[in-house]
């Protein structure tokens, strides 16, 4: 009996979910286009300071990143709690920066070399002593364009 009742169209017809994949694919492509793959895993604490007079970096591929901060909690026993420099995926010393910058320069096309920029992503807890060492090394490596990475703050 109940079968007949249903056929007569009691409730609303089920919504078609055929377009759901399309919507999800659209989202997927959006994310694929707008995002960049994470290249390094952070092993330092990295909460950036805030500033209002900021500029955006247009081309991330021209950026070499220097991370500065205290090692994350899992690394503290091994590397201590003092802020350190992270290049690529490991802790390095300031003296390794010249090599790091040279490697980046080597990997960049000739016409884009003048646009290379070094991003210093330093934690708010870092001291200027370490930052100054980095800056001196960058001067020696002739990488003069730098960017102090900050979050945007609105006044």
């Amino acid at each position, binding site marked *: 009996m109940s079968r007949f009742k249903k056929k007569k169209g009691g409730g609303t017809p089920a919504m078609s979910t055929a377009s759901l994949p399309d919507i999800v694919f659209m989202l997927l492509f959006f994310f*694929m286009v707008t*995002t960049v793959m994470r290249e390094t895993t952070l092993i330092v604490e990295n909460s950036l300071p805030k500033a209002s007079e900021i*500029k955006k970096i247009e081309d991330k591929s021209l950026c070499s990143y220097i991370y500065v901060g205290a090692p994350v909690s899992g690394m503290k026993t091994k590397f201590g709690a003092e802020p350190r420099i992270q290049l690529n995926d490991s802790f390095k010393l300031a003296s390794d920066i010249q090599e790091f910058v040279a490697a980046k320069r080597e990997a960049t096309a000739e016409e884009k070399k003048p646009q290379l920029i070094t991003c210093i992503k330093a934690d708010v807890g870092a001291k200027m002593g370490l930052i*100054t060492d980095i800056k001196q090394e960058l001067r020696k490596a002739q*990488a003069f364009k730098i960017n102090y990475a900050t979050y945007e703050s609105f006044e």
Partner: protein
Amino acid sequence: MSRRTLPEINAGSMADIAFLLLIFFLVTTTMDVDTGLVRKLPAMPEEEEIIDDSQIKSKNIYVVLVNAKDQLLVEEELMDVSQLREGTKAFLDNWGKNPELSDNPQKAIVSLQNDRGTSYEMYIKVQNELSAAYRELRDREAQKKFGAYYAELEGENKKEIRKMYPSKISEAEPKKVGGN
């Protein structure tokens, strides 16, 4: 007729697959825009080169010192960061009125020196205030001349404003006083 048509492939799980991919991309990618204060480092001085700064009158130099306790000493007076912007603007935009401050913005130099123990947060705050002072003066001039903000100007107009208020922030080698 109905017997001949191929049975439709069930596309219900398609959404699940797409969601899986979507979540993978969400997790592995970053969307944070890289923003920051852009600066240009000076070239390393040559060994034999002696920097001659005796030509610059001391009134044209705005000395900003930050110590290891994040305290600010501006022109030999203690100052709070919140006042730095106004102070810098007054110094740059003096045009010889106050004999203690700069002759004109072209000659004015902001000299920033920090200690090795200064916190990075404070350093960025100071840098930000200094750039804000320059930006506000440029904006004011750009509004007066072209009716637009400095950042909106292009080409020659932008150069003209930049020439009026050239950003000259000099950073001295830091001293080690308060440890690191």
